[in-house]
């Protein structure tokens, strides 16, 4: 399975990437909403997001709504392409 992207080839990160890939280009999800949609703990989500951000797959944008700080997450073009390549590679392996 050497050809499978090691960044995405983990259950948690695959779920995050798959969820973010449902957004239209230019759309972003807040951290709490993504956590709610994935039903994932905040700690786990943060850990996986850091790895995805380090790989250049996810954008992390800090913003404020009123006085409340809020973090928005979205897939980069590289991340979207990596997710498509990853699922294509899986389909290729499955014949």
């Amino acid at each position, binding site marked *: 399975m050497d050809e499978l992207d090691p960044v995405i080839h983990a*259950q*948690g990160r695959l779920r995050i990437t798959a969820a973010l890939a*449902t957004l*239209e280009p230019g759309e972003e999800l807040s951290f709490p909403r993504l956590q*709610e949609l994935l*039903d994932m703990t905040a700690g786990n989500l943060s850990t996986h997001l850091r790895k995805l951000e380090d790989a250049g797959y996810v954008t992390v944008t800090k913003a404020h709504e009123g006085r409340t700080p809020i973090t928005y997450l979205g897939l980069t073009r590289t991340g979207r392409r990596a997710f498509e390549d990853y699922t294509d590679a899986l389909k290729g392996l499955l014949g």
Partner: protein
Amino acid sequence: MTNNNDGDEPLDPASMLALAQKQQKSVSSQRGSFVAIIMAGYGVALLAGFLTLRFVAGPVAWWVFIALFAAAIALSITLGVRGARGIRSSDSFTGTAYGISWSLAMAGLGALGGGLIIQGLDNHLLLLFYSCVYTFLIGLQYFMAGVIWRSVPSLIVGGWLVVVAAVAPYLGFPNHYLLLGIGGGGAFILLAIVTASRNRSLQLSASKGLTTNG
């Protein structure tokens, strides 16, 4: 409840592919869970509103119709805002332009009817005109929403409403209200039921996949 598929360890390729697909279904069903309620709201407003206009005499029927539509609009705004929470977009052009097209077309048709009144259009014909063209407009706007956001259910219900609105005047006043109510409102209610059951099966299928993998 937290999920079991949060770890670093991968599964076999078939399970990973299934996990990705189930996750996308789960997100789509969660994000679209309110759409069926909005459609049901408009369906009830159209069905009950037009049937009231058909069978109840006097201005009270119009007040009932307006109240039902106001309630449906309020419901759709409330649920739409709730559904969009935590989501932001750098490209708001399409959504904004589509929103403006509703206001522009509604106001334009109102003015067009006003012009017909000035030109001496008969009251029954005016009521026939307004009810049919506004239903036509709703259908066309739903159809365009289906084109823009690639939604087949919106294309179907929008196209159907256009047909209903185009045929209704041939029944004459006030029987056209029957077709607009049953054909138009009924289509929305049917679509709400189909959307809700499709969403439910997506949720079931996604939750099954997300709890059994890993």
